[in-house]
């Protein structure tokens, strides 16, 4: 062999070495990547701490379940969808309200709400929704606290309550619940530390979903009894898939404070539909307040997502809350439920496309079309309600006696409860689209009927009707 190879051969040699080195790096990289992926699938769970029913702090639970915990923390994110969610708005902290960020006022956006809730605390402060992380702060510092002396009951759904209930009840959840119900909010508030946490939905030993809210157990018992099933116990008899909705249904519901004990109760003894709930309230003669402008004894709806979802096609198909609001996601080789609870519209691939084989944009357009149709109908209903309220006001001003106003007021009570129910419900009609639009049509009809009763009673109107 020539001891002095030509330069071109030497370059070829270098080039080959360089390429071989690069190929080795690439193959080694691939090998490690494959190794990593095969390892990801193993070791799903490392027990770092021993959990029990006295540990409330989700950060401690998070040591055993870091992936779920990290997602749970993300409920601080504020993001809008077409009709829901909210943007973060700066707020200058005051002595009574140290929040630096709040959400936009819904009252400013739609002043008709102020008139609907005239004389009630919600007409003072009602804001757009944001994530679970804010539930306790926002309840503590809402203006509503300053207008009315709120009850400790409110905490049932705005804080992690398992530990406070058990402490106050000496280990008995029900007893603790009853004690907190009639405490003043400011006093009860001292017992609560965290927004809803792991312990509120999970058994610390098995991580199975569980029910921790006495009012839900009672509400479901009454509901099932109305369907012919006596002594139903939701905390022991519900299926695993039902639990994926029931844990949410402990709070995302309509409720009222029963009797002088201010016991938190769900009005489900006749069923979950609007007509059932109104019939129930009429029977127990419940009112939330007396309308400041018309004198009608009216009701306030809270956040009846569970009742509304129950009327829709997803509930009928066995699709639960968690299927869309906490869909499975992949962390390496593991599938976990997304504990970043949020609007499915912010997560269409995982929330919708598991079942619906359409492009993301198409699915989003469909949802927004449903919501816009509801939004438009809801606006008509609110206009109709304003007309009824104005007519009752005018009739009052004309000194029409109470007995002549009674029917119109009863229609107002019904109409505004139907509207309020679905205005407060957090899906802009999506959870049960046809039911929601139908309910708005009924509300418009109640307003019309209410106005008709006045027409025959107010003298000046009688005259104009005769002409």
């Amino acid at each position, binding site marked *: *062999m020539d001891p002095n190879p030509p330069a071109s051969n030497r370059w070829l040699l270098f080039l*080959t070495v360089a390429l*071989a080195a690069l190929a080795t790096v690439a193959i*080694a990289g691939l090998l490690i990547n494959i*190794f990593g992926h095969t390892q990801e*699938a193993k070791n799903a769970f490392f027990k770092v701490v021993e959990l029990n029913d006295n540990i409330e702090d989700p950060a401690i639970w998070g040591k055993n379940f870091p992936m779920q915990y990290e997602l749970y923390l993300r409920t601080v994110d504020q993001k809008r969808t077409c009709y829901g969610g909210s943007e973060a708005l700066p707020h200058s902290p005051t002595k009574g309200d140290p929040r630096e960020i709040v959400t936009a006022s819904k009252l400013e956006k739609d002043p008709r709400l102020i008139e609907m809730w005239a004389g009630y605390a919600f007409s003072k402060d009602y804001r757009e929704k944001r994530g679970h992380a804010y539930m306790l702060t926002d309840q503590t510092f809402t203006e509503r606290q300053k207008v009315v002396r709120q009850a400790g009951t409110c905490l049932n759904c705005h804080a992690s309550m398992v530990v406070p209930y058990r402490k106050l009840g000496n280990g008995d959840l029900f007893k603790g619940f009853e004690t907190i119900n009639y405490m003043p909010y400011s006093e009860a508030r001292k017992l609560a530390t965290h927004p809803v946490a792991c312990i509120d939905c999970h058994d610390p030993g098995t991580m199975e979903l569980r029910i921790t809210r006495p009012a839900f157990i009672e509400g479901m018992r009454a509901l099932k009894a109305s369907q012919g099933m006596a002594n139903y116990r939701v905390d022991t008899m519900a299926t695993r898939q039902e639990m994926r909705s029931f844990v949410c249904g402990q709070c995302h519901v309509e409720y009222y404070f029963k009797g002088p004990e201010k016991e938190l109760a769900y009005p489900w003894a006749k069923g979950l539909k609007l007509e059932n709930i109104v019939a129930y309230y009429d029977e127990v003669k419940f009112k939330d307040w007396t309308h400041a402008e018309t004198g009608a004894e009216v009701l306030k709806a809270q956040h009846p997502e569970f009742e509304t979802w129950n009327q829709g096609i997803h509930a009928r198909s066995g699709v639960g809350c968690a299927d869309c609001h906490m869909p*499975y*996601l992949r962390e390496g080789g593991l599938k976990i439920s997304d504990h970043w609870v949020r609007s499915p519209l912010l997560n269409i691939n*995982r929330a919708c496309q*598991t079942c619906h084989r359409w492009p993301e944009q198409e699915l989003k357009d469909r949802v927004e079309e449903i919501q816009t149709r509801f939004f438009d109908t809801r606006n008509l209903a609110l206009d109709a309600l304003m007309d009824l309220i104005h007519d009752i006001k005018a009739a009052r001003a004309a000194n029409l006696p109470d007995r002549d106003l009674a029917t119109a007021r009863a229609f107002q009570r019904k109409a505004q409860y139907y509207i309020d129910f679905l205005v407060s419900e957090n899906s802009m009609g999506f959870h049960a689209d046809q039911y929601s639009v139908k309910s708005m049509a009924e509300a418009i009809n109640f307003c019309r009927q209410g106005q008709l009763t006045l027409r025959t009673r107010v003298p000046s109107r009688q005259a104009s009707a005769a002409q």
Partner: protein
Amino acid sequence: MKTNVAVIVLGVLLGATFGLGVYTFVYARGHSYLSNDPRSCTNCHVMQEYYAAWLKSSHRSVANCNDCHTPHRLIGNYATKATNGFFHSLAFATGNFPDVIQIETRNRNVTEGACRTCHREITLAIVQPHGTGDVSCVRCHFNVGHLAASYVVSNR
């Protein structure tokens, strides 16, 4: 003499590369991808739920993954395996893919073709009067092979 050393060094290097390549191929069960066994597709766990759903589907005893997802001709078969193999590996290695995976046009056409090969007599009768427009088998029969949702529902 110098050159001989260089050639030996080069030989060792290339041999190492080759050896590492073979090891990686075997470790990653590369040979399984040349087979027709549906379990090869679950080497990567993304496909596990689709495999599980297929086991419960109406087609499980008459068609496997390859029957519906690769063309029935030799070259097309390996070309599709190679293309999908490359892009699936790339996606899986980089993590750049949606959790609920979505079929793309080329692969959808392969599957449409598979329907029309086995069910030729029926599909010809349907397609001909309608022309070749956008009649799609899987638009309606989306759950005959595997429906991820049916897996999710039956396993909770």
